[in-house]
């Protein structure tokens, strides 16, 4: 995909939103195993709102755009996911600032800002069996690939496989945060809904980047 940085960010966000809406049932079923089954519903209802108001979102710059997304998500999504996902977008937006071009370093910084925001908001870290267990390894992989000079499509392809592998590996973990943590040892053996949601979304972004970029 070519285009301005804003167009690229728009593609990413629209794909996230559309994937959340399309996977309402699947994400909900993942959350039902040791959680309360509403992860899919919460994300879908919130990102529906994002898509509904899509054309009216502030597009002054990448930062403003992402911050506005973060506000919609925080204010429309309930449960744990609202504050967690909203914080991620908000922090990424603040990190981007009034950018019109985004370097590889800036993208990585935005992703770090997002995951750090989640850690602070959720008082959680890698290994707690949350979406951080997909997001953080994925960010590491993106940083590595960009440093090695790979093009965007290649970077995203690696990000997608990394997120998928990492999400699947969460089934080895015992949950220490979120509702799943109440079940202790019994949370072992099933993947974390949030982490798997991230994997599915990144796969869709990787796919969209090449197909929609080509048009």
């Amino acid at each position, binding site marked *: 995909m070519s285009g301005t940085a804003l167009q690229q960010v728009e593609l990413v966000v629209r794909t996230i939103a559309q994937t959340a809406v399309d996977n309402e049932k699947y994400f909900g079923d993942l959350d039902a195993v040791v959680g309360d089954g509403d992860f899919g519903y919460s994300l879908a209802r919130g990102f529906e709102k994002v898509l509904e108001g899509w054309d009216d979102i502030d597009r002054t710059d990448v930062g403003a755009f992402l911050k506005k997304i973060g506000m919609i998500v925080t204010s429309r999504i309930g449960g744990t996911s609202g*504050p967690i996902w909203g914080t991620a977008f908000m922090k990424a937006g603040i990190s981007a600032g009034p950018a019109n071009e985004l370097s590889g370093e800036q993208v990585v910084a935005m992703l770090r800002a997002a995951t750090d925001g989640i850690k602070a908001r959720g008082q959680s870290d890698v290994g707690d069996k949350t979406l951080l267990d997909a997001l953080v390894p994925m960010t590491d992989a993106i940083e590595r690939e960009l440093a090695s000079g790979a093009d965007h499509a290649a970077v995203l392809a690696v990000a997608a496989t990394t997120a998928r592998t990492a999400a699947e590996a969460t089934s080895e973990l015992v949950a220490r945060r979120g509702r799943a943590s109440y079940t202790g040892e019994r949370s072992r053996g099933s993947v974390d809904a949030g982490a798997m949601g991230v994997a599915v979304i990144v796969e869709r972004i990787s796919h969209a980047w090449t197909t929609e970029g080509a048009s």
Partner: protein
Amino acid sequence: MKKFINDPQQFVPEMLEGIALANPDTLRYLPEYNLLMRADSPREDKVSIVQGSGSGHEPAHVMIVGKGMLDAACPGDVFAAPPMDYVYETTKKLASPKGVLLLVNNYTGDRMAFDMGKEMAEAEGIRVEILTINDDVAVKDSLYTVGRRGVAGNFFVIKAVGAASEQGADIEELLRIGNKVNDVTRTMGVALTSCTPPAKGSTLFELGEDEIEMGVGIHGEPGRKRMKMTNADAIVDELLEAVVTDLPYSSGDDVALMINGLGGTPISELYILYRRAHQKLTEQGIKVTRSYVNEYCTSLDMAGASLTLVKLDDEIDALLGAPAEVAVRVF
């Protein structure tokens, strides 16, 4: 799934509208924020008491708004904490010079939404305090969890601070009272069946024909252990043992005993549980001086029950005995 619903996405709003229609003189409903509030709140001379949490636990907490209980309820969707801006808008609408007390059951989502809502309201000069409720003994508190859940025992915290705020207590005093009640309140629940969130359309988990889930949460979260179905007395004995030894409650104590139905269990069975619990406590020298047998905090249509004890002193007893009027009622 067979339920009395129309559009599953309208489950919460239509329920709230029903409650408002049934109580036109006493309640006000603001659909934009799922907000149900007393028609006469906020008041200059009274701290506003607000509780928020996911829906699906009715009558908690949307049907206990009223005199001597909550000034407002701020519900999210089924089993989902309310979005942060519902909390923020609710806090603004309920702003009183004496402050707003937000009662939060200890779940990650609820705590985050209420923390964020509080920060935003405070930025506008509103006095806000949060009181966290965590009465569930099924979850062992440890460094590796997010701490105990708030379950049916929240009724007693609400009742106590609701009564005290009606009598003019200031917000520090309400925090003291609420924390004091929370500290002497313990609950454990058991599920005989799963429950069916309307939007999911199927049961949240599966329980075999001969299985029960001991220590279940109120969102269908699995509990301490899955075990073979057994008789009512044996189930009570296990719940009671866990609850009594936790505080612990001991001989000479006066207690309130609550048997709370989880939504699908008829009240006849709750009294069979009550009977055993009352008898066992009496044997142990623990005197039941207040009894609560009904649905207080449910998990949709789950068959099951929870048992709560509150250790009473004169102050708590008087607050629990103070008059109150809410939407859930007989007459």
